[in-house]
C-alpha cells in the first residue's frame, strides 16, 4: 500500500486550487457540517432551480482529503438535477466502501470523473469520513432546499 495511492496528484491539485470555493448568494439552504474527531468543517450552500442544482458554494477548513473532496464534488454536481447529484453521492459512497478494490473504481470512473481519484482513501478507514463530509453536507442541504419531484 503506497501513500501516493491516496494522495493522488489530482487530489492535491484540488486541495491547492479548489474549484468553486467561497459562499455565494443567492442560496436556498445552508448547512454546517463538522467532523468532531478531527475538527474538519465545511459550510455549504445550495441553490436549486426547479430540480436543478444551479450552484453549490462552500467554505471550510480541514485536511487535504476533506477539502479536495468538496472541490471535486462541486465539479461533479453543479448543473445536475438533485436526484442525479444524490445518486452520484451514492456512487462516491460505494467507492469509499470499496476497501481499495480497483474494480469498483474502474466501474465508476465515468460517473465520478476526478472524484474517482479518491479510491485510495478507501484503504485508510480513518480518512473515509474526511472524504465523505462534503457529500453528507450536500445531501443534508439538498433535502432542505428541495422538496422532491413536483407532484
Amino acid at each position: 500500500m503506497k501513500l501516493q495511492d491516496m494522495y493522488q496528484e489530482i487530489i492535491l491539485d484540488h486541495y491547492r486550487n479548489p474549484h468553486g470555493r467561497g459562499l455565494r448568494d443567492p442560496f436556498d439552504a445552508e448547512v454546517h457540517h463538522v467532523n468532531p474527531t478531527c475538527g474538519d468543517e465545511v459550510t455549504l450552500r445550495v441553490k436549486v432551480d426547479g430540480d436543478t442544482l444551479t450552484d453549490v458554494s462552500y467554505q471550510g477548513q480541514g485536511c487535504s482529503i476533506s477539502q479536495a473532496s468538496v472541490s471535486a464534488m462541486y465539479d461533479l454536481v453543479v448543473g445536475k438535477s438533485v436526484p442525479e447529484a444524490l445518486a452520484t453521492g451514492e456512487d462516491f459512497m460505494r467507492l469509499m466502501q470499496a476497501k481499495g478494490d480497483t474494480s469498483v473504481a474502474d466501474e465508476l470512473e465515468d460517473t465520478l470523473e476526478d472524484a474517482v481519484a479518491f479510491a485510495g482513501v478507501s484503504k485508510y478507514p480513518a480518512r473515509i469520513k474526511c472524504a465523505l463530509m462534503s457529500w453528507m453536507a450536500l445531501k443534508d442541504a439538498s433535502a432542505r432546499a428541495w422538496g422532491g419531484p413536483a407532484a
Partner: protein
Amino acid sequence: MTATATTPATGRTPLPLDVEAVRADFPILGRTVRDGKRLVYLDSGATSQKPRQVLDAERWFYENVNAAPHRGAHQLAEEATEAYEAARATIAAFIGAQPDEVVFTRNTTEAINLVAYAFSNAVTAKEPEFRRYAVGQGDEIVVTEMEHHANLIPWQQLCERTGATLRWLGLTDEGRLDLSDLDTVVNERTKFVTVTQQSNILGTMPPLAPIIARAHEVGALVMVDGAQSVPHQPVDVAALGADFLVFSGHKMLGPTGVGVLWGRAEVLDALPPFLTGGSMIEVVRMEGSTFAPPPQRFEAGVPMTAQVIGLAAAADYLTALGMEAVQAHEEALTGYALEQLQAIPGVRVVGPADTVARGGAISFVVDGIHPHDVGQVLDDQGIAVRVGHHCAWPVVRRMGVPATTRATFYVHTGYDDVDALVEGVRHAQRFFGVDGGEEVR
C-alpha cells in the same frame, strides 16, 4: 514535586532509562506496521502500551483466582477479594494515599463524572449529611481553558442541572495558564475548582500551588486531573494538597477499563453515591436503602477486578523504574525533540517552547500541511502520533490553529524515535512539496 523548573534540557543528554531493556518488556513493540516498518509509538498520551508484567498479572488473575470480590464465601472469592484489596493498597501507595481513599472507576472521565454527579445528587439527597457539597444558583464552579473535554463538559452539565455558574481561567498566547485574574475568578462564591496537572495537548504544567491555596482560602474544593501527569512524574497527594486526584490506568501502562478517583477521606465521606446497585449498600429495604462507607459507596457492581490487578502491576513496574527517572527520561527526550522540531523551517510548536514547567506532550503545526496529513505521512513511516483537536477544542481555538499533530513519549521512547519523528516531518514537507512553509512546486 515538579523537577522541571530548572535549566531547559537540550541536546542528547544521557537517558536515565535503559531504552532497549524497557522495550524488551513490551511485546507490541516487536511488531511492524505499514509494510515492515518498525513501530515508533509516539501516542502514549492517548493510551500507553502494556508491558508483559501487566499482561501476565491479568492472566494470572483469570487463570488462578477469578471470582467476584467482596461476595461469596468460597476460597476463590476470598482470594479475589484479597488480591483486589492488595492492588488497591499498591495503587494508593503509588500516589502516597490511604487505600480507603482510592475509588476505582472506568477511567478518568468516569472519575470526574462521579464527582460531578455526586455534587448534583447532593442537591436532592434525603440524608442531611450528603447535602454538604450541594451546588446551586449563586455558586460557581471554576475550570480552565486548558482542560480536556473530560474535565470541562461534566462541569458545564453540572451547572446546567443545578443553576450554578461556570467560570474559567484563560490561557496566555504561549499556552500557559493565565493566573492574573485568579483572585477574581476564584472567589467567595466558588464551590469547586478543577485543573489539569499537565495539558494533554500543550504539555503545559500549570502552577497548582497558588490555585489550590486560593481555592482553599475561599473554602472551595479542588480537583486535579492527573491523567497526563500521574503516568509521567512522581505525584504525592499529601504534597499536592488537593481534595481530589483523578487518573486513568490505561495511560500508565495499565489495562483499559480502570481509572482512579482519589479523594480526601473527609470529603468522600460526605459525598452521596453516583452509580447505585449491588455492593455499595449498607442496608436495603423496599422503602429505601443506606449506603456503605467509601470506597465501596462508589463502586457499585462487580468491579473490573483483573484490570485493577493489572494496574497494580503497572504501578509496580513504574515504581521499579523510579518515577523520578521516568520524569527525567521524558524531560531529556522533550528537550531534544523541541530543539530538533523547532529547527525545521515551517514547523511551529503549539505550547511552551522549552522544557520549563512542561511535560512530554508536544503539539506542532507544519506550514502548508494540515495536521491530519502530517499524521498520515508519519503513519506511512511507522510513526504513530495523534492528530486533531485532542479532545481539547477550546485550546486549539484559543491557540489559533485548526488542529495539531501531537507526539507523546514514555518509558520505551528513545532518541531514535525522536529522530524518526523529525525525519518524518521533513519527509512530509518533501511529500507535499512545501519547504519552510514555501511551496516549491
